[in-house]
C-alpha cells in the first residue's frame, strides 16, 4: 500500500478522511463517542483485530490515520451490526467501518495482499458482469489469486456441493445487466461534479 511518507501528506489525508466520514449520514456522531468499549466488547471478531473499533474511532479523532489504514480492523468486520444496536451514543459503527473500507480502497491504501479487499473487488466485478453474483466464479477467482490451499481444505465439501447441484459452473446474465454499469457511471459523474 502507499506509504504515508510525510506528516503533511498524512494531515491532508486526515482532513479528506474527516470530511468523507462527516459527509456520510450519521457520520458526525463519532464526535460524541465516549470510548465506553461496548463496540469492541460486542464485536465477534475484535479479538482478531490489532485495534478494536473503539480504538479506531479514537485513532481517527486523534488524526492517527496511519494506524487506521494499516490496521486489519475494518477488513475483519463482518457487518453483524451488534456494535450499532448497542452503542449508547447511537453511532452507526458498522456504516463507519464500511466508510473506512471505501476510503481505503479509494485512496489505494488497502493492503495489496489482503484477502478481504480482493474478495470485495471480485464480488463487484461479478455483479457488474452478470447482474448477479456468480458464486462459483467468485470462489474460483479468489482461490486462484489468494488462497491456493482453499481447494484442498474444501475438497470433500466441495464435491458434495457440486454433486448436489449447488455449484453451477455457468451463470446466466440478467437482461438489464448493462443498467448496473450505467448506474455506476452516473454516480461517478455526479461525484466528479461535486468536486
Amino acid at each position: 500500500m502507499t506509504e504515508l511518507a510525510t506528516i503533511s501528506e498524512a494531515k491532508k489525508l486526515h482532513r479528506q478522511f474527516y470530511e468523507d466520514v462527516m459527509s456520510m449520514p450519521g457520520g458526525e456522531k463519532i464526535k460524541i463517542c465516549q470510548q465506553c468499549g461496548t463496540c469492541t466488547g460486542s464485536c465477534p471478531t475484535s479479538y482478531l483485530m490489532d485495534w478494536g473499533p473503539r480504538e479506531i474511532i479514537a485513532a481517527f479523532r486523534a488524526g492517527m490515520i496511519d494506524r487506521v489504514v494499516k490496521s486489519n480492523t475494518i477488513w475483519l468486520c463482518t457487518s453483524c451490526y451488534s456494535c450499532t444496536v448497542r452503542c449508547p451514543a447511537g453511532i452507526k459503527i458498522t456504516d463507519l467501518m464500511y466508510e473506512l473500507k471505501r476510503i481505503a480502497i479509494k485512496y489505494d491504501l488497502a493492503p495489496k495482499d489482503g484477502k478481504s479487499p480482493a474478495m470485495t473487488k471480485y464480488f463487484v466485478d461479478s455483479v457488474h458482469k452478470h447482474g448477479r453474483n456468480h458464486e462459483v466464479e467468485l470462489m474460483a477467482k479468489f482461490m486462484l489469486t489468494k488462497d491456493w490451499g482453499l481447494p484442498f481444505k474444501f475438497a470433500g465439501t466441495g464435491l458434495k456441493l457440486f454433486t448436489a447441484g449447488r455449484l453451477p459452473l455457468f451463470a446466466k446474465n440478467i437482461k438489464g445487466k448493462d443498467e448496473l454499469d450505467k448506474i455506476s457511471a452516473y454516480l461517478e459523474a455526479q461525484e466528479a461534479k461535486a468536486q
Partner: protein
Amino acid sequence: MAEDKIAVYLCHCGTNIAGKVDVDKVVAWAAEQPNVAIAREYKYMCSDPGQDLIKEDIQQHGINRVVVAACSPTMHEPTFRKAAADAGLNPYLLQMANVREHCSWVTVDKDEATEKAKRILNAQIHRLPFNEALEPIEVPVNPAVMVVGGGIAGIEAALKLAATGKKVYLVEKNPSIGGHMAMFDKTFPTLDCAACILTPKMSAAGKDPNIELMAYSEVVEVDGYVGNFKVKVNKKARYVNTDTCTGCAACLDACVVRKVLSEFDQGLGKRSAIYIPFPQAVPLRATIDAEKCLTLKGKKCKQPCTTACGPGAIDFEQQDELVELEVGAIIMATGFELWDPGQDARYGYGRLDNVITSLEFERISNASGPTGGEIVCKNGEPPKSVAILHCIGSRDQNYQEHCSRVCCMYSLKFSHLIKEHLPETEVYELYIDMRCYGKGYEEFYRRVMDEGVHMVRGRAAEVTDLAMSPEEEGRLIVKTEDTLLGIVRRIPADMVILSSGLAPAKDAKAVSQTFGFGCSADGFFLERHPKLEPVSTITDGIFIAGCCQYPKDIPDTVAQAGAAAAGALALVDNATVKVEPTISYIDPEKCCGCHICVGLCPHVAIQYNEELKVAEVITAACKGCGVCVAACGSNVPQQHGYLDDQIFAEIEGAMAF
C-alpha cells in the same frame, strides 16, 4: 391619552441585543413616535442604575407610561414593574418589548433585526395608551401544606414545616412511609445503616402533632391556585381499622395466603395477603392486598386473620374514603423508579439466574432481607466472583440519555459490602467513568480500591451462559472490553449485579398534569429554572423535591427537601398572597346569559348567577387564560391587561411597517 408621556428604554443587554440590533437607530426612531417623551438606551436596564433611570424619569419628567425593550417578560417584568411602583407609577402601566428572545437571539441579519426591534417596540408604543392602572388582588393564604410522597424527601420537608408550627398533610401511596431508602442496606460513603438513620425521622413524622400522616392514600384531583389549593385525596381501604390495629402482626402468620411476592423485598421474599411491608413501618398497621385476599376476591376463607386479631381490627366492609383538603402550598416528593433491565436482553435479566438489580442486591445484603443478610446465589451458595455492571439504562441513547448520578457510588458500596461479608470473593466493577463527586466520595473510591476490588474500565457488552472452556462451565460470563488494557475480557461471575439507572415514575407525566406543571425531556418533573429555581415549578405554590425532579443522592435530597419546605413556608407564612389582577371581567349589563363561557372555563372560575341571569367571574379562581374572552359570541368578557383595545392597538403597531 393625549397627555400620555411614554418613556422608551432600549437595553443593550451587553452584546446580546446591541450586538445585533442597531440601538442608536432604534432609539432615534423611537424618540420621534407619537406620545413618546423620552427615549434612552442603556447597557443593562435590569441593574440598579438602569432601574434608577426609569424611576427618575417618572418622578422628574411626569412620565406616565413606560416600555422597556429588553429581554423576555418572564425574566424581568417583575423587576421593572417594581421599579415603576417604587417611583409611584402603577406597575401595569409598564410593558416590556421582547427584543432579545424574540429578535436579536433569533435573527441572523443585523438590518432585519433592527427593523424587527422597531416593529416590536412600535406594538407596545401603540398599546400603552390603552393600558389601565390595575391593583393586585390579595387573596388569603391557607397556612396548611400538603407533601405528596413519603420517602426521605417528603419526610424531611414535612418535618421542617411542622417544626415551624404549620399543619402538614403527608400523603403516601404505599402502606408505609420510607420510600426507597427504607429498602437500602448501608448508605455511602459513611456506611450508615439506612434504616437506622431513616427510622427516627419516620417515627418523628408519624408522631408529630402537626403532621397528619395519610399513608395508603393517593391524590386524585387538584383544583385551585396558589394559597388556595383544593385537593381530593383517596384514602384507600386497608380493610383494617387503623385506630384499633396495634401492628402486632399476629394476622400475618395466621393468613393462609403465604406466597405473595413481596414488593418491598423486590420479589425475592414472600409475604401474606395481609401484610406489614417491613417491621419498622410507619404507620405500623396491617393492610390487606385485595388482589390476593381470598375473602375479598369472593372465595371461601375461614378468615384466621380475624380470629388472630386481638383488637378485632379486621374490617372486610371497609371502603375507600375520598376526602377534600384545603392547603396553601404543595410539595411533590414522589421519587423515582428503578429502570427495568429486562428491557435490554443482552444482560440476561429475567432469563439467566443470578443476574440481579441493585435494589435486589440491597435486599439480599440487608440483614432484615429475604436471605437474612447472607450474600448468596439462587442456589444458596455464596458467590466466588461478583461482577457489578455500571450504566445499565443510563447514558444510553437507546434507553435513557441521562446519567443517574448515584449508581457509581452505590456500586462501590456494593463492592465494599461484598468484600466485608465474603473477603475471599473476587469483585469486579465494570464502569465507563467513576463519578465520585460528593463529600467523602473520592476517598470512599480509594478505600474500595484498597480493598482489592478489580476496576475494569469498560461498559459490559453482554452477559452470557455459553461456556467456551471448562473453567467457564456453569458460570455467568461477562464479556467486556477492558479499554485501559485494550483487550476483550471474559470475566466469570457467579453473580452479576446490574447497576440500573433511576427512571421517572411511570405515571410522572400524568401526575404532573393533575397538579398543573410539566416534565422535562428526560421525563422528570420540570423545575422553574434549572440553575436558580430548582424547587419551584411553573405553577405558583407547587414545589418539587428529591428524585422526582432528577436523580440525586440522599444528602442532596435532604437539602432540596429543606429548600422546598423553605419555599412553601415563604408562601404560607404570610396571611395573604398577591395574585396578578390580569383576570377576566363580565359586564352584567352586556351578558345575555348563554352559559357558553361557564362550561368552557378550564379553571371552573365562572358561575351562573341565577338571580341576575348572567355569568360571573369568581375573581379569586380566575387565572386570566382568556378562553372566555375568545369564546363569547357577544364579546362581553374583557381581560384586564389584555383589553380588546390594547390587543388591537398592539396589532396595529406591529403592522404599521
